[in-house]
């Protein structure tokens, strides 16, 4: 494989990881907690999308907001029942609780959707564009990095430039003081969880046509997205997106030049190496969180 096709494939794959990983960043930036089963949120979004858009044939203008609404509600539920009670007690058990909710969701999806994978057709994933010979991509594969970068930019601007965004940063730096300044800390955190699940929903709708909808589709994606979030530095939207791209590139280069037997070994070994060299991730800053 020549260099250019490998880069293209890697970027398309990596932007999927990055997109999903942004969900980890959003809640971490506000509350210092994450929903560990972000992959399951993605499965939920894909299954909801399959029902609304494919099975029941709703128009996109109705179906897509409906999917994102369901994801937002799911995010609120996660925060209310799997995170807030534990954080209030100063315990770290939200860690296990979010994993548990993810497993419950996976099994619910298995129950509702069945084990058999189903197709998720999209007009953006029918005819590949041949950018260079032998490196065709579906238009959707170009849309994903664009959406990912736009969302990362939007998040970055939101937290730095808007009142609400600054309020969010205040919440993570000092919840007590933020509360005294009249910021509704609880609500801000709840909204960040809703936003995180919505990001997973967007990722699901973009990825499903390239993949298939299946009850276990989010598992490996969730793990790789988490790796991207950690490498990128959980606190930085740019870092997370960048790390996703790196991860995708590493994966494709390993497969292309060494063979698929080495893909997972090389990919996850690289994760460790990056973290040893840069303990706070690519763009993370040291000392953000004092324990």
């Amino acid at each position, binding site marked *: *494989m020549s260099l250019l*096709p*490998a880069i293209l*494939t890697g970027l*398309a*794959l990596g932007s*999927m990881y990055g997109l999903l990983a942004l969900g980890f960043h959003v809640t971490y930036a506000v509350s210092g907690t994450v929903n560990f089963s972000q992959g399951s949120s993605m499965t939920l979004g894909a299954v909801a999308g399959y029902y609304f858009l494919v099975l029941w044939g709703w128009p996109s203008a109705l179906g897509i907001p409906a999917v994102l609404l369901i994801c937002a509600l799911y995010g609120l539920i996660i925060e209310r029942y799997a995170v807030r009670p534990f954080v209030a007690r100063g315990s770290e058990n939200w860690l296990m609780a979010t994993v548990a909710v993810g497993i419950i969701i996976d099994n619910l999806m298995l129950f509702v959707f*069945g*084990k*058999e*994978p*189903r*197709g998720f057709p999209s007009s953006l994933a*029918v005819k*590949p564009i*041949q950018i260079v010979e*032998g*490196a*065709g*991509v*579906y238009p959707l594969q170009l849309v994903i990095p664009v959406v990912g970068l736009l969302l990362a930019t939007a998040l970055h601007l939101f937290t730095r430039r808007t009142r609400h965004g600054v309020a969010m940063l205040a919440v993570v730096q000092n919840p007590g003081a933020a509360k005294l300044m009249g910021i509704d800390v609880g609500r801000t955190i709840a909204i960040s969880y809703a936003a995180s699940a919505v990001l997973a929903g967007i990722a699901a709708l973009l*990825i499903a046509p*390239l*993949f*298939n909808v*299946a009850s*276990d*589709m989010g*598992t*490996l*994606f969730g793990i790789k997205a988490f790796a991207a979030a950690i490498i990128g530095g959980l606190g930085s939207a740019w870092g997370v997106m960048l790390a996703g791209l790196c991860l995708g590139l590493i994966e*494709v280069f390993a*497969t*292309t030049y060494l*063979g*698929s*037997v080495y893909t*997972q070994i090389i990919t996850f070994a690289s994760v460790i190496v990056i973290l040893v060299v840069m303990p706070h991730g690519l763009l993370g800053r040291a000392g953000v969180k004092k324990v």
Partner: protein
Amino acid sequence: MKNALTSSHHSFRRRTFLKALTGVASAALLLVASGAQAADPIKLGLVAALSGQSARSGEALTRGATIAIEEINAKGGVLGRKLELVRRDDESNPAKGLIAARELIQREKVAALIGGLDTPVALAIVPFVNGAKVPYVVPWAAGTKITQNGAPENYVFRVSAMDDEVDKAIVQYARKNFDTKKPGLILVNNPWGESNEHGFKAALKAAGIEPAGIEKFEGNDVDVVPQLTRLKAAGADTLFLVGNVGPGSQVVKSLDRMSWMPPIVSHWGVAGGRFTELAGPSAKNVIFVQTYSFFGDLPPVGKKVLSALEKKYSDIKGPADITPAVGVANAYDTVMVIAAAITKAGKTDGTALRDAFYNIENVEGLIKTYNKPFTKTNHDALSHEDYIWTHFDGDHILPVANKK
């Protein structure tokens, strides 16, 4: 004192009487029991996935076995006794499969066990049936080690495809039809892919050709372009594919993106259903192995089974509705073979029955007529010569000869 003696005397007499009575009663019971046994059905156990992803395949096995049993029972059964199918769900889980097998053999006292959709489930059951000395016939799972299990007393037989034979068949088919000189192997990264990697290496070595490369992919990989590009760069002229529907569709979609259209010859994993929905229009390019198809001009047995299926199951209106056809055909033939063995053995004793499998003659099945299909060293009824080649036309699996 006197009273006591009298009473003991009395009780002695009563005991004798009771003993006699018990004797008569138990003799009577024995008679009744043996009478009942003659009329008792011979039970055949079926362990398969009846729920979950493979439920459809489990249902196909059930239907094939049921049609065969009804046909046999209509002719008076075997050894004057009716056959009866007792089903248990293994949920594609080896531990549950083993529990079900144990229950069927120990509690239901089945004469023979049928089952094994998934190779891991079948492999879990193998040591148990060999210990329990009850014949176990696999109508689906293709893992080579199921029948070649190394046990000194092997009770495991198979009426289905087998990885090593399939790999041999794929190599032969590709050479004959596509003049394949340098195949590229694209295999799912799990024990099934592993099993076929061994099979392919042996088959290619025997044919004297070198593969362009052997690439693995994960069951939930989105993009297989890098692996396929490696194979293309290495000069692969044909692809040999091993993977189920989901992973197989990712290979086809990736090839579409590369606009590379080599011939693809595949193991039967892609036949699981909905392959066209998942892989898109290029799904029809994949040619895969099957043991049977109800399409085309059927021999008398095929016609008979097809009409029996249509009569019994309202959702079957023609060959296209029998999916997966291999499940129905393999299970039908499996029951016919077991019935023939029971007739040969003249009893349902496990070891006698097992030995009778070696002497089966002229059993008319769907896939072929079984004439001494098993020997002490070969417990597989089908070989690469019995397979057929098919492809998807929409949702239907058609023999390649019918290709439009």
